[in-house]
């Protein structure tokens, strides 16, 4: 059987990333109409258990490439496997989550496959038998509907949290095909030496709740009340560029056009005016709360709930309130 719809399962150190399975939901949304099952491709080292997880969320077939040289993601050896497997299968589409790794992988392999890439999709649809992909462009100010013109498979990455995680418990099993690595270590130009991870920080990537601070927090210590609120809510701390450029918080927290693009369920903007470049990173959040001293701040045009007031009074009160309600 030759499935027309494939998913690529993004993993880090053998674990599927939190958003990896969202690609399966996106795949399901088109597979049925195309009359196709879903094949999952897993590449890495220590990844064999991901096959069962894939069946569990409803995938029909799994192809695994397991090799020591694939322990860390490096684009050359991963793309070599990817291009070989998909060059033979030539399905209609391959879907993956829009991580840094998947972006590089799809871009690199597309040159070998001679097919197109569409990144950061927020919607997928079948129209007259063709896959139509919706994605934000111009820093999220505009939307765009895109299609493959030639070449197959079309490689589509879906924006984190644009599709829900698939339900597990499908209780399926199916065939697992093993394939070997294509490149040997001596053919690779890159070596991964280390990971430097910020200790104890919840990343804004994929976070369901983000408490974000801007120039209004007035200094590095001004983030403390925000961290306390984020901790009670189980969320991450974000920041405007003004706060990052002032050196109050590392760049990895910056939300916006030149920072991260996030789409949490809840975004609480504290002391952030809401410049268009900041909006570019957070406007698709489900519920936006703004706390600002200035009732004319543009952030209130985007917010569902607005509090005009001093963040240093409101945020601690909110932390206290949730601590009580959530029993923490």
């Amino acid at each position, binding site marked *: 059987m030759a499935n027309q719809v494939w998913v690529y399962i993004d993993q880090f150190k053998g674990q599927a*990333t939190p958003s990896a399975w969202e690609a399966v939901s996106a795949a399901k949304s088109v597979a049925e109409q195309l009359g196709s099952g879903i094949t999952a491709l897993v590449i890495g080292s220590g990844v064999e258990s991901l096959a069962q997880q894939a069946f569990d969320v409803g995938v029909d077939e799994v192809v695994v490439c397991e090799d020591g040289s694939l322990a860390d993601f490096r684009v050359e050896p991963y793309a070599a496997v990817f291009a070989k497997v998909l060059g033979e299968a030539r399905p209609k589409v391959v879907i993956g989550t829009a991580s840094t790794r998947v972006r590089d992988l799809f871009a690199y392999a597309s040159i070998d496959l001679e097919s197109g890439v569409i990144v950061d999709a927020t919607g997928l649809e079948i129209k007259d038998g063709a896959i139509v992909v919706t994605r934000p462009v111009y*820093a999220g100010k505009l939307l765009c*509907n895109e299609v493959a013109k030639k070449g197959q498979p079309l490689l589509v990455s879906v924006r984190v949290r644009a599709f829900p995680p698939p339900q597990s418990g499908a209780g399926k099993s199916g065939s697992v095909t093993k394939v070997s690595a294509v490149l040997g270590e001596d053919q690779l130009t*890159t070596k991964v030496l280390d990971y430097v991870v910020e200790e104890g920080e919840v990343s804004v990537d994929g976070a369901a709740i983000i408490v974000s601070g801007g120039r209004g927090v007035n200094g590095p210590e001004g983030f403390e009340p925000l961290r306390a609120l984020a901790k009670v809510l189980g969320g991450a701390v974000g920041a405007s560029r003004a706060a990052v450029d002032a050196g109050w918080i590392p760049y990895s927290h910056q939300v916006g056009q030149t920072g991260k693009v996030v789409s949490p369920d809840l975004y609480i903007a504290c002391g952030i005016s809401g410049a268009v470049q900041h909006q570019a990173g957070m406007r698709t959040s489900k519920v936006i709360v*703004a706390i600002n001293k200035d009732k004319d701040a543009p952030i209130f045009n985007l917010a569902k709930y607005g509090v005009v007031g001093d963040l240093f009074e409101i945020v601690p009160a909110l932390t206290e309130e949730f601590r009580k309600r959530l029993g923490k």
Partner: protein
Amino acid sequence: MNIVVCVKQVPDTAAKLQVVDSHVTWGDSPLIVNPWDEYAYEEALLLKEKFGGKATAISMGPESAVEALKTCLAVGCDEAYLITDPALKGSDASATALTLAKAVQKLGDVDLVLLGKQAIDGDTGLTAAMLGRHLGWTVLTQVIKIHEIDPAAKTIKVERFMEEGRQVCSAKLPAVVSVIKGINEPRYPSFMGIRKASKATIPNWSIADLGIEASRVGASGAFVAWPEIYPMPLKETKVEWIEGGSPQEIAAKLADKLIAEKVI
């Protein structure tokens, strides 16, 4: 060290965009150097100052893109080339990367190509890895720090910004590297630099100059098309003000709302 910097000209980040029949315009808002590409030219200049050699800026785009290249010359790049050809209109990232690859090959003797992370119009972030594949060179994207370069041994050590943290890797040159904010503080052009750049002549290259067949670029060479562009449908959000006599009262009301929204 011979370094090539790829810059794209884009509408200003604050431009008010209008869309008519899927055609995007930005009124009299200025066109600027893609903000991420400022980090790329700054890094090229820093490396050049350290190791000597040449920094060359290239851009593919309409004739107006010459202004972006002038900015590169004004900050201190040695040379600039504009790749412009009616046949390039409608190019996707793959065709753009092919065109840039041919330009890098034509320049010859290049150790490092620097790009920005992403262009703020097309917003794909695909060009660097595609360009690297076309050239058959090392690809390092999302670089936030270049730790060291050994031009003699032809090696580079960088830190990449990933979801899980910073990945430190060493690699072989030549390489294609895309950079992000945090790697440096881009300089402003000096008055002298601007004067010099305004007098410079910037050669134009056509696809024939680069030996590219028209069928491989532009709308005819593209693997993807984007036939429909439209404004992001605005969620009808009218802010609901949460008021109260004390912060505690406001917090309690807001907590009620957020719990009812099922986002907590």
